[in-house]
């Protein structure tokens, strides 16, 4: 049985424009023929194109969690707008005539099944250890580690140089030499420290601008130096130890993750970092540009409806390849994932999945989210602090808090301010975020004034006895912790204050 929802099409589409084009094709009746097989595992049709002959398009749901798209159009987008249009036609309830599966589709199915079988056999062999890790692979991994250790030494030296003369001196001098050093870190397989150094240089460049917020920038710069120092010291020792024990395999540690290792799903599976049959509900979404990475990062916060854990999905889109990388987007429906993979780390771990379906949210789902909300602010704050205190931690910890009220007050200096009061009567200040969720300082672009949105909800009911999904953020300069509100969860809906 084919399950298609609007959200699912949105998630499968490479970007919003492709989805919009697909909708357009559907609305204008672009498909001149629509067919399906008896078992409803595949749909196909012919779509008018700009050329003489029609395009032949199919969407194969033999594996319902991972549909296969095929189209004879010349587009390199995947799925193309025709495949998306075909799904929109199905969603719209148009009549798909029952027919025998076309020979070409059947042939491709057979080939795909054979490929999967081969991959499974290979995986089995590797698991049983009969194939063993190729010696060449181990040698390469060791070589890489040595290079990383060498690079971390350079990082340590950079930190020493900067601290000897001080950040202020750095701000008074050209940063080009450091930019060169940052570039070189790529040669040492250290993308993590490379990005940290680039963030530091961004802060330094900003410090040179008139009217710069020196306090906040230096605060951030020191924090970055602490991270770099920690990595250069601990990560080097960690890698040395692994080399000595001839263990070159990837590890489930925050240290490994912060070096910038690019994980393959098989590696996560090997480390047992996965869970089967997960149900996720997205509570918030953002897309931000990270200058240090030169990437757009689409971040979605999701709650696992069973474990009540809050994770994040991340989609990295390099500026140079924006056209070719799929965009993530808001998802309103429940995402059902056969296999959910976890990245190493603490706090709101990054998760990833390949196969999925979606379905509408039910009241039970929302009840599950509310059941996962912490009614005790003190408890949640303590847990957040325990995460945030770690030198390698992210800038914020997401949590869901059950509240009795969100109040609006007036402050002489700041104007309208908001507080959240939990069910015990404890309260915490709500603020807009100062940092990007991925590190780095927030620019004005794209940020919704989330606290101000509380004044536009038009219903006081939303501000009483509901749950708030937000991000605890530590303001080091002020020595205080606050909560960035992202969405309000009620028994009937998730009201997003951002996206």
């Amino acid at each position: 049985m084919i399950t298609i929802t609007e959200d699912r099409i949105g998630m499968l589409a490479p970007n919003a424009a492709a989805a919009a084009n697909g909708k357009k094709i559907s609305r204008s009746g672009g498909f001149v023929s629509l067919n399906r097989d008896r078992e409803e595992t595949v749909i196909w049709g012919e779509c008018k194109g700009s050329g003489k002959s029609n395009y032949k398009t199919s969407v194969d749901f033999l594996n319902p969690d991972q549909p296969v798209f095929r189209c004879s159009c010349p587009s390199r987008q995947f799925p193309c707008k025709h495949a998306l249009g075909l799904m929109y036609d199905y969603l719209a309830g148009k009549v798909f005539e029952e027919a025998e599966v076309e020979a070409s589709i059947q042939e491709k199915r057979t080939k795909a099944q054979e490929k999967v079988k081969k991959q499974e056999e290979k995986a089995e062999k590797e698991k049983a250890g009969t194939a063993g890790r190729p010696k060449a692979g181990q040698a390469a991994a060791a070589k890489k580690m040595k290079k990383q250790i060498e690079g971390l030494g350079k990082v340590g030296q950079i930190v020493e140089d900067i601290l000897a003369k001080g950040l202020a001196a750095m701000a008074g001098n050209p940063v080009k030499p450091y930019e060169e050093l940052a570039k070189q870190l790529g040669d040492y397989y250290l993308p993590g420290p490379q990005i940290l150094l680039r963030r530091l240089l961004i802060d330094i460049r900003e410090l040179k601008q008139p009217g710069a917020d020196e306090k906040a920038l230096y605060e951030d710069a020191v924090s970055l130096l602490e991270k770099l120092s920690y990595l250069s010291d601990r990560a080097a020792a960690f890698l040395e130890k692994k080399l000595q024990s001839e263990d070159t395999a990837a590890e489930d540690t925050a240290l490994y993750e912060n070096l910038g290792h690019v994980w393959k799903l098989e590696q996560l599976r090997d480390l047992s970092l996965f869970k089967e049959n997960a149900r996720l509900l997205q509570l918030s979404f953002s897309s931000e540009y990270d200058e240090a990475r030169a990437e757009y990062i689409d971040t979605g916060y999701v709650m696992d409806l069973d474990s009540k854990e809050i994770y994040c999905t991340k989609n990295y889109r390099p500026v140079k390849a924006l056209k070719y990388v799929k965009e993530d987007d808001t998802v309103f429906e429940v995402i059902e994932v056969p296999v959910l993979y976890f990245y190493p780390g603490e706090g709101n771990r990054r998760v990833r999945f390949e196969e999925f379906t979606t379905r509408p949210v039910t009241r039970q789902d929302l009840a599950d989210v509310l059941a996962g909300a912490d009614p005790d602010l003190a408890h949640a704050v303590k847990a957040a602090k325990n995460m945030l205190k770690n030198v390698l931690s992210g800038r914020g910890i997401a949590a869901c808090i059950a509240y009795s009220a969100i109040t609006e007050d007036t402050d002489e200096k700041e104007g309208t301010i908001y507080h959240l009061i939990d069910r015990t009567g404890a309260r915490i200040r709500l603020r807009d975020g100062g940092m990007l969720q991925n590190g780095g300082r927030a620019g004005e672009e794209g940020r919704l004034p989330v606290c101000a949105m509380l004044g536009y909800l038009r219903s006081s009911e939303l501000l009483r006895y509901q749950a708030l999904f937000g991000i605890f953020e530590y303001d080091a300069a002020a020595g205080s912790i606050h909560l960035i509100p992202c969405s309000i969860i009620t028994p009937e809906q998730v009201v997003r204050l951002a996206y």
Partner: protein
Amino acid sequence: MSVKLLFELRERLHYTAIAGILTAGEDFRLHNVLKQFQEAAGISPVFARMNGLLEALRSPEGFTGRQLMEAASLVDAVCTTQAAGLEKAAVPGKAEEPAEQPAGNPTGQPTGQPAKQQENSRGVCLRQFRYSEVKPFLNALREKGSGRYSILWEAWQAKSEVLSDYRLTPALIAGLGDSYGEMADLCMEILKQADESIVPILKKGLDPNGKKEMARRVTVIASIAKERENDYYMELIESGSGPVRQAAIRALCFDSGNQELLAALAKSERGEAKKAALTALMRNPGEAGRERLFELLKKDPALAAPYLFYLEDEETADWIGDQIEEFCTQSLPAGGKSKEELAKLSGRLKGLLDALPNKYSKKLFECLARLGGREKELEPYGGKELLDGVNLAVAKTVFLRPHREILDAAASLSDACGAYLPAAVLSSLIRDFTGSYDACGGWLKKRDAVPFLGWVFDKVSYDRESRVYAAAMTVYALDWDGETRGILRSIRLGEKLDIRWVKEIMASQDWNRGLRGMNYLQWYGTGRFSQIETLKKLTDPEDEELCDMLRTYYRHYAMQGRGEEGIRAYLELGGTECKGMIPALLKAKPNLVRYPYQFQTILALYEQMPMTREEKAQEMLQTADRMEKQEIKATNQIVTLLRDQAVALLSRN
């Protein structure tokens, strides 16, 4: 734990990182705090641990960056755990539970509405869309630069639901003060579609002495809440000034209890506030309001005219008729009057005539019939031009109120004085579409009738979906908020057009001449009516006789080289005999082949022509030959372009 000491230590360590380790030796504050920490080492295990790391910083030989960072990291971590921000409950106790339980018991059933659009239990609809859908509009509203207006405009025109996303509200409200006025007005129109829950938000932060931005807020509130916020409008009139006060005065139109007040304001106020009061009186003036409007019409007809548009009653029509009669009695004939006097009286008469649209009474029409017969006497006041305007005002009335009585009266007007043709023709088409030609076709013989008939048939078109002819027109009038808006009127005429109308249009040599006195007729469009465009709109594609006739006409038009519109019309109607059309056009209109970019448009016509590639190529080559022989004027560049195009055609597979 001594939190103060902790934060002081943190500050010094950070300072060292900023100033540099090399300066640490001279930082007495750092030394002090390190000393204090040494003394406090026994307070807690954490302090003891920190103190251990701080030993390196006390070394007389100095310390490394790594040692500094290690100490700073630990201190920062501890500071994080001590961060303020959480205010605990005054009296810790049992967690409070809501007095009302959340609506409904959790079930496995879907929530009943798409997650995008859900109502809370008070029925307030919070529509939310995806990031990719909302972001472009937020960018358009918040950023500067070109293109942002069209993003919002196109969404508005397409009635995009995304504009109702509540997260756009703050940006839309801020957009009421956008420096680009059209953007601000568009934000206003969008916000008018919101529900009443937005009213308190708009009232909050509304400055009664503000400028246009605040006035727009008032307009939005009034548009949504109408008479329900009457007390609020009164407050603003009392306390406000300028545009806000004017907007509040206009908002009084929704409550008929304000009529006396508005009439008083219309009398006592000046300038924009006076106009605001008159606007508010427009639709429902009551006795006092009517008296005020009539007073104004007598005193200053030009000022009063727009505010009389919605008064359809006989009394108003009679009153206007009386004013016109009075004018005629006192001012006709015009002999002996000075230029200044004539100009003043002319302005007065035009003002009275501007009040004519949407007015009917027997008395008024009799008065107009008499006026129509005095064309010569009216010459000093504008004469023919003036009557043209009256002409079209009466036609507008027919359009706005196509009732039998008015239709008959409009037709009779023309019989009485030979003027008012548009009204008569329009009435005829509405009363008896099939028999309309017999009723008034003879008027087409009059040269002067052509522009007016052009005006009438410009409004008529064949609707292919409903398979019927209809007349449609947009009448512009002042609206309650002071803006002039179009009111679209559409009248069903009939299923079959008398083909003689079409023959007359085709035969007319003057059809494209247009109307004189265009400045005066500002409400009636440009005044130029394209013959081909008129014919195309009148085409019923299933009427074989009509289509054959038109094809023949278009072909003749095209072969005479009168314009590419003829070629396009011919092709759209399925014409197949296209040979020679483009060469004829090029010969007749040499300007078309002056520049390559112009010529490309003409060449593109070949794509639509049902000729073989060889036929097209041959014609192109022959045309190129004629150009070289100077039979058709063209530059060498154009000749080359033509030959290249022919070769390209022939070499296509």
